[in-house]
């Protein structure tokens, strides 16, 4: 008890000192900095506004693609960075993450930075993720697309942007269409002119064949069980069609993107030129085998309309090498082979019109299809109905595209 009394005074003094210092500090900070909290909120608001402004710019570049001033600024360094030396259709840069990456890497004037996604053990060099409903649980993911996380350099505040990659699709007009080549003569019970319509359906078709860069994204961000054994293809091949997937892998790629494999009759719908665009329900679907004309006799040996064997010597093949069809889809004839899912005649699933055949070949017609078993690329896996290519080819190139129905 005596001891305790001895400590009362020092304890009391210490308590007073503590109270004095805390109280004094608080008063001092209030006098010195009465608005700091408010100022912080003002700065936060400015940071959000800067991020939104930058998001708007990123969105513009995303949509403008090759037409953006940014592409002209960074083009040379970008091509060098990705080791691209050959020419390609630059419209493929629309809704393409490569342009945004290059703008970030080579445009020094930006006041934001992209945050590289953490991908666990992966040595991913990409500044983005491909986000789809099968690889994230985030709600409201309609549609899927590329995720970029933007950080404001000044405040380090971040914003995650999902950029939809739908600008390379085209809407198929609601009208009556026909499948396959036109039947000559009067239709009978055995031979039917196979007509169908897509009224009340919102069908979107990929404008171009699936590219290697898209398959690379599938390998990086898709379920590895479905991409086992598929190699990434870089450099000059990035903007070239993906031609090394088997049929089942092609189907799975489209599913990863929330789409379906392109169906043969919808490809016919998007490529046969309607005789009268203003009549959506014609009594008969007359059709020319060439997408550029209504006349059945107007075949042209023109590499800008049909990339055939003769064109290989004139210019290198690339995606979108010929004119678009009436609906806006590319490479309707010529180029490489293209496989479809054909629910009417599964054996006729291949657009054989390609640079494996010269201009004189009967294969260069819309609706006329060969067969592919979908397993491998040697001649024995194809059925050319007796009209075989005259070249010796070890592995044929088979491309594909996807389609989807929208609400």
């Amino acid at each position: 008890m005596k001891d305790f009394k001895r400590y009362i005074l020092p304890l009391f003094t210490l308590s007073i000192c503590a109270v004095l210092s805390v109280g004094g500090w608080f008063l001092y900070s209030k006098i010195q900095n009465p608005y700091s909290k408010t100022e912080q909120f003002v700065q936060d608001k400015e940071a959000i506004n800067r991020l939104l402004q930058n998001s708007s710019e990123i969105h513009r570049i995303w949509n403008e693609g090759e037409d953006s001033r940014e592409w002209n600024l960074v083009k040379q360094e970008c091509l060098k960075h990705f080791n691209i030396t050959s020419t390609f259709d630059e419209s493929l840069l629309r809704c393409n993450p490569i342009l945004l990456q290059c703008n970030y890497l080579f445009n020094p004037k930006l006041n934001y930075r992209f945050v590289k996604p953490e991908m666990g053990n992966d040595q991913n060099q990409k500044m983005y993720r491909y986000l789809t409903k099968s690889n994230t649980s985030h709600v409201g993911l309609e549609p899927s697309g590329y995720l970029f996380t933007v950080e404001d350099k000044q405040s380090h505040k971040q914003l995650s942007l999902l950029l939809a990659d739908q600008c390379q699709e085209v809407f198929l007009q609601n009208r009556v269409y026909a499948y396959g080549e036109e039947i000559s003569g009067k239709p009978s019970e055995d031979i039917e002119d196979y007509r169908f319509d897509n009224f009340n359906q919102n069908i979107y078709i990929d404008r171009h064949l699936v590219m290697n860069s898209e398959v690379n994204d599938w390998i990086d961000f898709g379920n590895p069980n479905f991409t086992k054994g598929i190699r990434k293809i870089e450099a000059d091949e990035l903007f070239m069609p993906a031609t090394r997937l088997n049929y089942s892998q092609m189907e799975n790629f489209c599913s990863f993107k929330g789409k379906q494999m392109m169906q043969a009759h919808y490809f016919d719908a998007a490529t046969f030129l309607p005789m009268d665009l203003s009549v959506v329900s014609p009594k008969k679907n007359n059709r020319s085998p060439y997408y550029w004309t209504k006349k059945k006799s107007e075949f042209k040996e023109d590499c800008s309309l049909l990339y055939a064997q003769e064109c290989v010597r004139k210019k290198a093949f690339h995606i979108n090498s010929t004119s678009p069809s009436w609906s806006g889809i590319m490479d309707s004839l010529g180029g490489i082979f293209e496989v479809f899912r054909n629910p009417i005649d599964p054996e006729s699933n291949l657009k054989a019109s390609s640079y494996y055949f010269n201009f004189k070949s009967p294969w260069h017609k819309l609706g006329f299809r060969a067969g592919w078993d979908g397993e491998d690329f040697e001649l024995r896996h194809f059925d050319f109905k007796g009209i075989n290519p005259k070249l010796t080819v070890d592995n044929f190139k088979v491309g594909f595209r996807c389609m989807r129905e929208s609400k």
Partner: protein
Amino acid sequence: MKYLLLTLMILLLQACLPFQEAEVSPEEAEMKIYNEWIFAFKVQDLKVNDQIITRPPGIEQLIFRLVIPTPGGVNFKTQCVYYQVPYKKIMGLLKIVEQKNVSSCSEVSSGDSWLELIHLSDLKVKLVNFKLILDFKYKNQKKVWTFLLPNIENGVIHEKYQAVKERKIFPGLTLLRINDESFANGRNNYLGKLSDRMSRGTAIRCQQVDKNCQNVGENRCDSCAYGWYQVVDYTCPQGGSKFCGQNHCGEKNEPACLRGTKVVEGSDSGICQSDLSAVLNADHVLVCQ
């Protein structure tokens, strides 16, 4: 000695002030709100539009609600926004109450508030060009809060020769609330597996249409993990029922593909492989056998 004790008491009380919950300032409230609402997908039940809310005085009322993803985006939550018109000694109040899921809001708030801002009067609310504007007086000082809502979408435009276009401030751009939880295994609530097939009985129906062409339940096709496809059932104007997954229409024991209704009728309105024919199954779906 007496004065010394008094000074000590004042300092002691002053020292406790930092631990007292301070009243929210309008600047703090604005930032707290903006950090949430910037991700809002829906603004619903907005009852007022650019009119000063004057009635009923002294009573709290629901002015609108927002549907917002939770951090990580695994679920949606609802924020209910209430306003109390000032009356005599009753202060004007803006109050936000949070609900853990998507649900309607009660007319008067209940439970803990997510945010409360007092000393408000003359509140006007309007939603214009994807901007939510709150105009009010705070302690008789005029304030205008403008919140840009980039995720709000007013439908889509389907146009021939064109890609789909969303009616929103930046079409094709969505702000997400990404964090590690967004990629956590086992948290994915999207519907279906890649192997699902109608022929195996595993395909998930995401929209059902009945014989009277009425939609049964909600359309969940936006929640399909691997896309969706339509089948032929009652040839209704809005189309048929829809299933999640990879489309194998036309194949054996799979649904027939759509052929439309303008050129054919009945079982011919489905497409099957040439060696199969279309028949109605027990669910009145045309399948290929």
